[in-house]
């Protein structure tokens, strides 16, 4: 059952990656990377059990922390001024409407 769960998470990761590449806005990419990070945490924890080496959980904890740090860092810089001037990333949605 663990192996089935691992494969399912793997599929979910592939879907998240395709969202990260499709965009269309910057925030979609950040969101996809964030949810990919969550899934990676799960995948590593599951792999640890598949291989019978639960010390993998340390890596999972590091991921959870690093994921938090990098997303907050991204948003810290997206708050700075240069991101409002060229908001051309947001155009695709405007076109659709």
């Amino acid at each position, binding site marked *: 059952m663990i192996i089935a769960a691992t494969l399912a998470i793997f599929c979910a990761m592939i879907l998240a*990656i395709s969202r*990260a*590449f499709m*965009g269309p806005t*910057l925030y979609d*990419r*950040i969101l996809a*990377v964030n949810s*990919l*990070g969550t899934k*990676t945490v799960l*995948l*590593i924890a599951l*792999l*640890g059990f598949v*291989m019978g*080496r639960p*010390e*993998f959980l*340390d*890596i999972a*904890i*590091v*991921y959870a*922390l*690093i*994921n*938090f*740090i*990098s997303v*907050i*860092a*991204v948003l*810290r*810089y*997206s*708050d*700075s*001024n*240069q*991101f409002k001037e*060229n908001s051309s*990333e947001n155009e695709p949605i405007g076109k659709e409407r």
Partner: protein
Amino acid sequence: MLLKDLFAVTMLLSIYGLLSATFFVAMDAVDVAFTEASVGAGISTLLLLVVISVTGRRERRVRHKPYAALFVVILTSMLLVFGTSDMPYFGSADAPIHNHVAPRYLNDSMQEINVPNIVTAVLASYRAFDTFGEVVVIFTAGIGVLALMSVSSKALSKSQPLNRPRGLYEQHLVIRIVAKTLFPFIFLFALYVQFHGDFGPGGGFQAGVIFAAAFILYAMLFGLDAATKVIKPAVIELLAALGVLLYGSVGIVTLLNGGNFFDYDYLLADPIAGQHLGILIIELGVGITVTCVMIMICFGFSLRRRAYEQKVAIRPKEGAV
């Protein structure tokens, strides 16, 4: 389609870090996965973001199409792929790497060093000299950034900018409280990784990177001024050098005790205890250096950015006068 948005490129790069770490986990290379997790997905994203905040978000348009470069890259990669066909198969028993020193590491490291995690034994004891080289490279990189990016403190202190955007502290209640709750745990986890390199994945490099990432996050959230108040930049520079010095001095002590450079057997009367002590100290040296160099690089870029912002803020006033 080529992405010109450097920010999006950074995000995609962090996916690469995530995936390759998963790959290393699947290959059972726990220590490498740990390093990739903390370096590839964590600190390199952070540092690239700091750089983007200085350089701007858009890639400059180039007139010429870099076809020649593309050709060279494709040619080289094809040659490399061709070269892999001569490599031994993955996991094959008669590969050169399994016949040279690896058997000794695997068979004898438990008696010689008595550290459960063989990677740490190889990294910190058998290959201590190589690791020393790596630490010196990191230190040199820090010095390089310092030399290129440093801003004279006079120029900064002359006037505080008026409309510099404040830190996230005031704006984001939620992050403030959650980050405050998490900081002690991130720091303690980094120290845990530092001291448990003997038993599981981890060690000085990973611990240093996690510690530095948490500190850089603090600097981002609460502002550069608060961060420099906690640890002065001069102290950080001193500590970075001290870490390398600590590492090197272990080697010197072993020399003075009559052994080879980094032969920890000579540190104490009992060789095993000597090995343990030596590994502990050099891992500490590595951790200190890595932490301080990462923080140094981040501070260097942030100060540079601030100096630039001040320049922009002051100029219009002078024009008016």
